[in-house]
C-alpha cells in the first residue's frame, strides 16, 4: 500500500492489531476507560466477533450515557440528481441511464411542506457533483427556502471552497456531510473514473473548510465494501479525532453507508455483512463515545430496530431518495440507492418506543444562531 | 532634589539621572527595573533619562515567588 496518507490519518502502525486473536486483549478493549486507536483496532478484528454480545452491551451503556434513551430523526431531500461524476458504485453516475431532475422553487416548497407536515424538523439536502443546475447559489436559495419551515438544515453535496461554505452557513445551513467513500487512495482512484471527485485530498480536507467557513457540524463516513473496511474504519477514527482536536467547538457525526452484497449491479470487493456492520458500529461507539452515529433506511427494518440505541443515536426515517419523492405529483426520477426500510414515521416511532427509545425531531433552533468563528491563531 | 521613591519621600543627591539614583541606592546596574511616573525606563536610557522634582520613581527587583 502506498503510504501517501498524512501522518494524522495513516493507521499503518495499528493494522497488525486488527488481525489479533488475543481474546484477553480484545475483551479488555471493550471495557477500556480511555480507548484509543489501539482498542479500536482490536475491536475491529475478526476474532472480536466472539464478543459481539458484550460489545453490544457496552455500546448500549455508552449510548445511553451520552445520548439518553433517544434517537434523533431526520430525512434526506434530494434536490437534484444531475451529475457529471463517474463513481463506479453509483446509480446516477454520468454514464448511467437515469431520469434527471432538479427541483425548482415551487417543487422544493412542496417537498418541504410535505416533510414539515409529517413532523420532520431536520433534513439533509442532497445533490450530485457540482453542476450548473445545482451550484452554490442554487444551494443558498434552497437553504433559505427550507429554513423557513425546518429547524436544522444540512447538506450532502460536492466539496467546495471555504468562502462558499460561508455563504451557505450565512444562509442558515447547520452542517455538512461528506463521505470520503474510502480512505484507500488506490481504490479511491479506481472508483472515481473522472471529474472533480478524483481529487482525493481536496475531498479529505473539505470538512475542515466547512468548519472554518462557519458551519457547526460535519458528518464523516466511508462506503463500506469499497476497500478493506477495517482500514477504512481506522482512518475514519483518525479523521474524526483530527477534526475534534483542531475544531474544538464543532460537532461531528459518523455514518455507515454500506454496499449491500446482495443488491444492485455493483458488487463490493470487500463485502460487509450485517454482523460486521454491527461490530464496527459497536467498536466506534466504544472508542468515540460522544460522537453521534447514524444509520439510514438503506438498512432493513430488522437491522435498524436491532441497532437503534446500540451505538446508533440518529436515524433517517421515511426516506425518499428520488428527487421530488415526498410530493405525489412530481415527475419520476431515478433514485440513488434502494431503500430497505419503507416504514412511515408513525410505524418507525412505534418500533422505537417498543425498544424504550424516544424519537426526537427537533434538537436545535437556528433562531439565535450565528456561524461559528474560530479565532485567528496568533503566530506560533 | 525631593522625589517619591517606591511610595516614600526621598532626597536625591546625585546628578539627576536614573543611573545616579540607582548608584545612590547602591544597586548593581542590572538588578532593577525602573518606572518613572508610570512609564518603564529601559536600561539603555538610565544614563540619559533625568528625574525632576516631585517625580514618582518605582524601583523593582526580583524576589522569591512561586
Amino acid at each position: 500500500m502506498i503510504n501517501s496518507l498524512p501522518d494524522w490519518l495513516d493507521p499503518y502502525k495499528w493494522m497488525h492489531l486488527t488481525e489479533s486473536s488475543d481474546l484477553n486483549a480484545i475483551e479488555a478493549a471493550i471495557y477500556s476507560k480511555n480507548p484509543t486507536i489501539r482498542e479500536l483496532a482490536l475491536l475491529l478484528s475478526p476474532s472480536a466477533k466472539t464478543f459481539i454480545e458484550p460489545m453490544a452491551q457496552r455500546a448500549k451503556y455508552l449510548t445511553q450515557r451520552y445520548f439518553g434513551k433517544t434517537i434523533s430523526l431526520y430525512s434526506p431531500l434530494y434536490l437534484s440528481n444531475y451529475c457529471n461524476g463517474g463513481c463506479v458504485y453509483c446509480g446516477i453516475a454520468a454514464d448511467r441511464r437515469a431520469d434527471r431532475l432538479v427541483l425548482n422553487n415551487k417543487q422544493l416548497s412542496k417537498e418541504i411542506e410535505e416533510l414539515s407536515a409529517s413532523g420532520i424538523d431536520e433534513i439533509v439536502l442532497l445533490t450530485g457533483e457540482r453542476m450548473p443546475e445545482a451550484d452554490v447559489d442554487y444551494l443558498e436559495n434552497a437553504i433559505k427556502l427550507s429554513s423557513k419551515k425546518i429547524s436544522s438544515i444540512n447538506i450532502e453535496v460536492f466539496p467546495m471552497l471555504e468562502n462558499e461554505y460561508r455563504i451557505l452557513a450565512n444562509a442558515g445551513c447547520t452542517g455538512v456531510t461528506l463521505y470520503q467513500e474510502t480512505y484507500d487512495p488506490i481504490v479511491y482512484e479506481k472508483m472515481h473514473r473522472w471529474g472533480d471527485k478524483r481529487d482525493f485530498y481536496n475531498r479529505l480536507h473539505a470538512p475542515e473548510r466547512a468548519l472554518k467557513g462557519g458551519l457547526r457540524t460535519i458528518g464523516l463516513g466511508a462506503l463500506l465494501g469499497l476497500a478493506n473496511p477495517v482500514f477504512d474504519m481506522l482512518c475514519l477514527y483518525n479523521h474524526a479525532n483530527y477534526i475534534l482536536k483542531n475544531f474544538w467547538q464543532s460537532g461531528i457525526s459518523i455514518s455507515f453507508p454500506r454496499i449491500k452484497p446482495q443488491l444492485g449491479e455493483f458488487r463490493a470487493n470487500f463485502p460487509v455483512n450485517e454482523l460486521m456492520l454491527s461490530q464496527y458500529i459497536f467498536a466506534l461507539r466504544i472508542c468515540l463515545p460522544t460522537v453521534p452515529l447514524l444509520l439510514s433506511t438503506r438498512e432493513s427494518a430488522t437491522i435498524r430496530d436491532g441497532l437503534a440505541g446500540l451505538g446508533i443515536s440518529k436515524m433517517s426515517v421515511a426516506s425518499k431518495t428520488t428527487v421530488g419523492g415526498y410530493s405525489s405529483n412530481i415527475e419520476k426520477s431515478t433514485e440513488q440507492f434502494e431503500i430497505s426500510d419503507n416504514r412511515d414515521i408513525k410505524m418507525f416511532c412505534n418500533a422505537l418506543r417498543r425498544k424504550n427509545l424516544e424519537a426526537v425531531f427537533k434538537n436545535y433552533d437556528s433562531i439565535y444562531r450565528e456561524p461559528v468563528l474560530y479565532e485567528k491563531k496568533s503566530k506560533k | 532634589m525631593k522625589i517619591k521613591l517606591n511610595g516614600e519621600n526621598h532626597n536625591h543627591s546625585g546628578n539627576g539621572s536614573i543611573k545616579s539614583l540607582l548608584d545612590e541606592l547602591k544597586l548593581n546596574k542590572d538588578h532593577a527595573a525602573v518606572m518613572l511616573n508610570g512609564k518603564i525606563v529601559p536600561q539603555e536610557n538610565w544614563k540619559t533619562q533625568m528625574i525632576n522634582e516631585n517625580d514618582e520613581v518605582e524601583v523593582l527587583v526580583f524576589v522569591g515567588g512561586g
Partner: protein
Amino acid sequence: MSDILSFDDISFKSRLLVGTGKFSSIKTMISSIKASKTELVTVALKRFNKAKTEDDLYGPLLELENITLMPNTSGAMNAKEAIRAALLGRELSKSRFVKLEIHPNPHHLLPDPIETYEAAVELAKQDFLVLPYIPADPVLAKRLEDIGCAAVMPLGAPIGSGQGLTTKEMIQIIIKESNIPVIVDAGIRSPSEAAQSMEMGCEAVLINSAIAAAENPTKMADAFQQSVKAGRLAFKAGLMPSTETAIASSPLTSFLSSYD
C-alpha cells in the same frame, strides 16, 4: 532520541519548574534549585527595599548555570496591573517567559479567569511566552490556546494547600484536548503527585511550596527531580490499559442470528 520540552525555539531538558518563594534563606533556595536540576525558575517582582538588600535574588540566581528566569505577575489584581508587571519583569529577566497569575482573593489565591484571559490576549500580542495560571477549566484552556498562550497551567489545588490533584479529572480533559503543553501548577505536595501528573500526560510541573516548606528542601528537590523523570518515562512507555467493570443485561444481538 531526546525528549525535549520546547516553547518556540527555546528548549529544556528538565520538566520540573521551580518557584523561589517561601524559602527560609537564599542559601537553601539556591541549593534546592541546584538539586532540582530545573532550567526554568519563577521569580516575583517587588519594590527594592534599601533596608533589606538581602532580598534581592538577582545576583545569586545569575550565578546558577542554565537557568531561565520566568517573572510572575503575583500581586496584580487585574489585567492592567498584570500587564505592567509582565513588562517590568521582562526588563529585568530579558526572557520572553511570563507566568501570568492574577489572584484577587488573598485567602485562597485562586486565579481570576476573566482578568487572566484579557491580560493573556495583550501579552501574547506583545510577543511574550505566556504561561497562564488558571483554574482547571477545559474551555478556558482552549480559549487561551486559541489566543496564543505558550502553555496552560491548571491548578491541582489552591496555592500552598498541598491538597494534591483535586482537579485530576478536569486536568485529564485539558490534556486530551490541548495542542500546547499542560503544566500543573499549585497544590502538589509530594513527588508521587508530580509523577502522577506526568503519567497523565502533563508536559511539566511547577513546584514551590512542596520543596520550600519541606523539612529538607534540598533533598525534597532531588526527590521531585527523580519523580518527574520517572513519571515522564512511564507516560512514554505507555501504561497498561485500565478497565471499567461490565454491567450485564438481557441479550441484545439475537436480531443478528438470521444474518450469519
